[in-house]
């Protein structure tokens, strides 16, 4: 058998790999894409929210046939204690626009659709094919991959690693160290089916409008993490995740947290009468900028979760994945046009281009946040409780005068966190956010 040579090999058929493969094939490059799952999307788990902007830059008319669930018109942020939540809700009819900004999606369907576009563009996609290692020449340059199939080597000018959070290929090949438990979150999720009218009445929606809830507080039992509830057309996605090292320390189980979250008095009525049809778990890289591995080298580029491209604060990941995939693809096309090799020096263009996008700007801005949240658990336990108690004191009408109530609230914060503690937290938060 003659071994085939491609312009590029893309490892993985998730958002980043698909974006990279599509971008290159559209420009006429000969692309091989390898996916270990039975079909694209079979291994992928996400909440999931699709941010239109990142996909629009790749497939401008995606709305015509992509499997979208609901466009998000209402965003709820909940700070929860055991019996209550203090919420900030933003709902706007402006989000009922012609080209909505955010959608809920079901990844198994969405990834299949995306992969269809990728194959239409001419990419050779092989599923159930796991890349076991990178092949290098005598100078250490990556020249291809070995797969777990018989006769399974393939060669290319450049290998784009969109292999996902575990990043086993890159790890095994020594491109990056093993994941650290404190930089990765473990999230679990269930899909609860309900008739669409029920979902629409419970969340005050009509047509394809959607609402999403992001929650934090005592639901994570003192660990650094968040929960979410997303509305799909005929199902509700509910999930919760915390940093892996926190799970290890506390001994709590992810499914235990999810069960408790579902039993919360503010959540239970939303799910009442639903049928859970799917259970999934996944890792999320949340180490941010400071946990980022090397992004390129001689003959290789990293995109998506494998490169820690997740903005944990804003719950953004797939848009970063698509954007890094696209930029990587564009960089390879650009080099090809200039007839230049994919050397480390030349591929530095990838990082230069990324620096100009929101991806690097946002991750740099929040580079202190992951560590900050990891070290300051009071934001997940003490403060939600104080906030809820304060709201209750304020809203309960019980003959106590308002000045006394204000005093009581202020006192509770001082007792709960001490004055220096409060000031310190405010300063630390401001510094990390900057």
């Amino acid at each position, binding site marked *: *058998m003659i071994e*085939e040579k491609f312009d590029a090999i893309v490892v993985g058929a998730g958002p980043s790999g698909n974006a990279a493969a599509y971008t290159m094939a559209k420009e006429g490059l000969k692309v091989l894409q390898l996916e270990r799952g039975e079909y694209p999307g079979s291994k992928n788990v996400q909440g999931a929210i699709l941010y239109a902007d990142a996909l629009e830059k790749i497939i401008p008319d995606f709305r015509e046939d992509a499997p979208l669930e609901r466009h998000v018109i209402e965003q709820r942020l909940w700070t929860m204690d055991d019996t209550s939540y203090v919420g900030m809700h933003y709902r706007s009819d402006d989000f009922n626009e012609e080209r909505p900004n955010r959608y809920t999606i079901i990844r198994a369907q969405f990834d299949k659709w995306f992969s269809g576009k990728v194959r239409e563009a001419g990419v*050779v*996609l*092989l599923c*159930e*094919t796991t890349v076991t290692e990178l092949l290098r020449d005598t100078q250490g340059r990556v020249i291809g991959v070995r*797969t777990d*199939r*018989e*006769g*399974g*080597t*393939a060669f290319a000018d450049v290998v784009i690693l969109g292999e996902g959070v575990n990043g086993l290929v890159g790890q095994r090949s020594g491109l990056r160290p093993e994941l650290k438990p404190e930089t990765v979150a473990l999230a679990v999720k269930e899909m609860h089916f309900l008739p669409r009218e029920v979902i629409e009445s419970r969340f005050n929606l009509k047509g394809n409008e959607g609402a999403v809830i992001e929650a934090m507080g005592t639901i994570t039992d003192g660990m650094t993490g968040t929960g979410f509830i997303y509305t799909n057309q005929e199902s509700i996605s509910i999930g919760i995740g915390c940093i892996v090292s926190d799970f290890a320390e506390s001994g709590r*189980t992810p*499914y*235990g947290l999810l*069960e*408790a979250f579902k039993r919360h008095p503010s959540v239970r009525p939303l799910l009442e009468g639903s049928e859970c*049809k799917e259970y999934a778990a996944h890792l999320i890289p949340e180490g941010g900028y400071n946990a980022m591995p090397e992004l390129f080298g001689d003959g290789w580029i990293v995109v998506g979760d494998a490169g820690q491209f997740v903005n944990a604060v804003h719950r953004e990941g797939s848009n970063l994945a698509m954007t890094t995939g696209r930029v990587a693809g564009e960089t390879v096309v650009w080099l090809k046009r200039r007839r230049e090799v994919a050397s480390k020096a030349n591929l530095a263009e990838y990082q230069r281009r990324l620096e100009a996008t929101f991806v690097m700007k946002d991750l740099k801005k929040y580079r202190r946040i992951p560590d900050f949240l990891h070290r300051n658990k009071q934001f997940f336990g003490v403060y939600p409780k104080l906030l809820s108690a304060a709201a209750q004191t304020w809203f309960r009408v019980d003959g106590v005068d308002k000045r006394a109530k204000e005093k009581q609230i202020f006192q509770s914060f001082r007792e709960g966190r001490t004055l220096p503690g409060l000031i310190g937290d405010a300063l630390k938060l401001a510094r990390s956010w900057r």
Partner: protein
Amino acid sequence: MHIVVCMKQVPDSAQIRVHPVTNTIMRQGVPTIINPYDLFALEEALRLRDRLGGEVTVLTMGPPMAEDSLRKALTFGADRAVLLTDRAFAGSDTLATSFALAAALDKVGREFGVPPIVFTGKQTIDGDTAQVGPGIAKRLGLNQLTYVARIADLDPAAGTITVERRAEGGLQVLQTRLPVLITMLEGVNEIRRGGLDDAYRAARAQVVRWSAADAGITDLASCGLKGSPTIVKKVFAPQGRAEQVRQVPTIDRSADELAADVMAAIFQTQPALEEDLLRFAAGQ
């Protein structure tokens, strides 16, 4: 030797359910797979090809999306895939299906060489009738060997084949003359994992698509719903049994507590059992 394997894309029946109110089968979101029994047929065909040379063609009738299953069969190592797809075939029962497949097999023979062996799985997991294979054999005048567990001997020169057939009460050793239609039993082999070259070929192959007209079918009254005398009078979910399933929460419970919870749940519906056990414990 040219071998044809007839296969079907089916909903993964492990995940299918009947709607409690409308009594219709809820297919939405249920993944489709190659009928598992057909994979034993495919592997047997691939083994014969590897031993004797020749080609394996996979043939299916179904909607356009059935192409996914055919492509998968190519990944396993089949050489050619033919999809028989036409709105005229919609609603086919086993009679109409065997009519269309027999016509397509005829055409396959003319286009790619007459197959001395046609394989199918013993039945499909969605219909469970086991009628289509024998129906094809009858229509094409092929000798038929059903529920085959092993191909003991194949002599292409003499045109004979000997198989072991599992039957009630024992194993039959049967010999017949080619051409033959074989329906394969489950568990007799394991589908192979194709090599990288198979995967490339599958990704790039053009699946042959035939409409009814392409397959030379003119008698449309024998196709699809029109050609299907079988009438589904009623679909219903099996009645749930009277016994109830009760779930005992396991979160934050020690083993002892869990055991106590389970026993309490049992005693709640079986008070007599609790009394018996108490009497037994008291030594009565």
